[in-house]
C-alpha cells in the first residue's frame, strides 16, 4: 500500500479520480465554477510548492507571473488578433524568460531577504499592469476574448470544470515527475544545505533557477486559464495580496506535498464562498480557521494528517 502510494503516478491518478468523482456531486453551475477556480489555484500552488516546499526558496511575487499570464490572453488577442491559445503560450514563454533573467540575481538572496526581493519584483509587475491603462485598461481591468477551439466556442461552467481539471492533473503529473528526477533530488539536497549540495557536485544556482522558471510558468498558465474562464481580467490578481494568498495555500496544505497544494487551494477558495453567509464576520472566521489549522497541523494539512495515520498503523 505504502509503495503504491509513493509511486509517481499515484498522486496525479488520485487527483484525476477526485475530479471525475466530484463531477457526479455537482448540484449546479455555481459549484462547477467554484471547483474550476479551485483547480486553477491548485495549479499555481503546485508550481509555487515546487519552489518553496522542495527547493526551500520563498517567493512573494508569484502573483506577478500569474498576472502576466492573465494579461497575455487579454492583451495579445485584442491588440494583435492572436488566438488565445497562442497568446497563453507566448505569455508562458515571456514569463519563463523574465523569471530566467531576474532569477539569477534574486536567488542569490536567502530567506527573508529573498522574500522582500520577490515581493518588490511582484509589485513592479503589478504596478506596471495597473498604471499602463492604454494597454491593460488600468485598475478597471479589461475584457478577454472568448476561447474558440476549432470553431467550437468554449463556454459553460461544466466545460471549464473539465478543462481546468485536466490541466491540474497534467500539472500534478509533471510536478511528481520532476520531484522524482535528478533535478528533484538536487532540489531537496540544496533545501537541507546549500554548501553540502555544492560539495556533492550540484550546480546550486542552476537548480534553483530551473525550479524558479518552472514555478513561474505554472503561475502564468494558471493566470491565462483564469482569465479565459472569467472572460475578464483585473490587476488585483497580480497584486501582492494574491502572492501572499498563494504562499498561504502552500503552507496551509503542506510544503513539499502536491496533494497538500490541492488541499490548501481548496480551503482558501471554498471557505470565503461558504463564509459570505456570515457577512461581517467572514474575515474573523477565516483568520481564526487559518490560525487553528496551523497550530494543530503545523506541518500543513496533508503531511500532518499523513504522519498521524502512519503513527496509527504502526501501533
Amino acid at each position: 500500500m505504502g509503495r503504491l502510494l509513493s509511486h509517481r503516478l499515484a498522486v496525479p491518478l488520485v487527483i484525476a479520480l477526485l475530479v471525475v468523482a466530484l463531477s457526479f456531486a455537482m448540484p449546479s453551475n455555481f459549484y462547477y465554477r467554484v471547483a474550476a477556480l479551485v483547480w486553477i489555484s491548485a495549479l499555481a500552488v503546485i508550481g509555487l510548492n515546487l519552489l518553496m516546499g522542495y527547493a526551500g526558496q520563498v517567493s512573494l511575487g508569484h502573483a506577478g507571473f500569474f498576472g502576466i499570464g492573465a494579461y497575455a490572453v487579454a492583451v495579445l488577442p485584442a491588440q494583435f488578433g492572436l488566438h488565445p491559445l497562442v497568446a497563453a503560450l507566448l505569455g508562458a514563454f515571456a514569463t519563463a524568460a523574465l523569471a530566467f533573467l531576474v532569477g539569477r540575481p534574486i536567488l542569490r538572496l536567502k530567506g527573508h531577504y529573498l522574500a522582500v526581493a520577490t515581493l518588490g519584483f511582484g509589485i513592479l509587475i503589478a504596478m506596471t499592469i495597473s498604471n499602463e491603462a492604454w494597454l491593460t485598461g488600468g485598475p478597471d481591468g479589461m475584457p478577454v476574448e472568448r476561447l474558440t477551439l476549432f470553431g467550437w466556442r468554449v463556454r459553460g461552467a461544466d466545460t471549464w470544470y473539465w478543462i481546468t481539471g485536466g490541466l491540474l492533473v497534467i500539472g500534478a503529473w509533471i510536478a511528481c515527475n520532476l520531484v522524482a528526477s535528478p533535478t528533484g533530488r538536487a532540489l531537496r539536497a540544496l533545501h537541507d544545505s546549500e554548501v553540502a549540495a555544492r560539495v556533492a557536485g550540484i550546480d546550486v544556482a542552476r537548480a534553483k533557477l530551473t525550479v524558479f522558471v518552472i514555478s513561474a510558468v505554472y503561475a502564468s498558465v494558471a493566470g491565462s486559464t483564469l482569465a479565459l474562464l472569467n472572460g475578464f481580467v483585473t490587476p488585483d490578481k497580480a497584486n501582492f495580496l494574491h502572492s501572499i494568498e498563494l504562499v498561504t495555500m502552500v503552507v496551509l496544505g503542506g510544503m513539499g506535498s502536491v496533494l497538500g497544494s490541492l488541499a490548501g487551494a481548496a480551503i482558501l477558495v471554498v471557505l470565503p464562498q461558504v463564509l459570505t453567509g456570515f457577512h461581517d464576520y467572514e474575515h474573523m472566521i477565516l483568520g481564526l480557521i487559518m490560525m487553528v489549522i496551523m497550530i494543530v497541523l503545523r506541518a500543513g494539512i496533508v503531511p500532518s494528517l499523513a504522519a498521524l495515520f502512519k503513527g496509527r498503523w504502526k501501533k
Partner: protein
Amino acid sequence: MPELLQFCVSGLTVGAVYALVALGFTIIYNASDVVNFAQGEFVMIGGMTTVFATAAGVPLPLAALGAVLVAMVVGLLLHRLAIEPARGASPVTLIIITIGASIFLRGLAQVVFDKQFHSLPAFSGNTPIRFGGAAILPQSFWVLGGAAVIVAVLWAFFNRTLIGKAVLATAANRLAARLVGINTSFVMGLSFVMSAAIGAVAGILVTPITLTSYDVGMLLALKGFAAAMLGGMGNPLGAVVGGLAVGLLEALGAGYISSTYKDAIAFIVILIVLFALPGGLFGKASVERV
C-alpha cells in the same frame, strides 16, 4: 530647493511610521524569530481606537493612552493564544499564523468599528509652519518627535535596565539565556506587548495626516517589513534607517519622477541595495554551517 525640503519633510514623516513598524518587526524577530505580519494591525488599532474614543467624548490624551493599552492587550493575547501554542513550529508556519491573526484582527475591526475612513484633528492645529520656503504641518513634528522619543526610550530600556538586557540576552542565545535564569517566555510576551505599543503610538500620531481605516495594516506591514530588510533584519538601527529611507525614496520618487510609480521606485532601490549587500545595509555577512 524649497521643493526638495518639502519632499524631504513629508518623506521623513511617512518614513518615521515605517521605521516604527520596522522596529516592531525587529523587536519581535529578535526575541522569538517570528516575522509578525500582524504588526500593521497594531498601527490600525491605535488609530481606530483613538478615533472612536474621541468621537465618544473621551479627551484626546486619555483616548490615545487607552488605544495604546488596547493594542498592548491584543499583542499579549496574540502571543499567548496564537504564537505560544505553536512553539517549535517552523518559521513559515508561524508567519502564516500571524497572517491569519492579521486577517482576524482586520475582520474584528470591521465589526467593532466600521469600514469608513477616519481622521483625527491635528494635535496642535493645521497652520503650516514656514521653514526655508517649505510649508510643514505641525503634525509632522509630532510624528518625527514621537518616533525620536520612542527610539531614545528603547535605547535606554535595552542598555540601562535589567529587563532590557534580558531581552538582548534572549535575542543573542535563547538556550543560554534560559540557563542563566531568564524567563524567555516572559521576554517573548514582553516583546509582543512592546511592539504593539510602538505600532499603536505610530498609528495615533500619523492618523491626522494619512487617515485610517480597518484595512490600513497589511500595506504598512509590508512596507515596514521591506524597511527592516533594507536595514538588515534584526538590527534596530537598520530598521530606523531603513524606514526613513523607504519614506524618503517614496516622497522624492513621487515628487521628481512619477507619483503613480512611487512604490515601484522604493522597491527598485531596495532590490539594487540587496543585490549589492545581500544582508541589508547594516547586516552581517551570513555564513552557512554544515
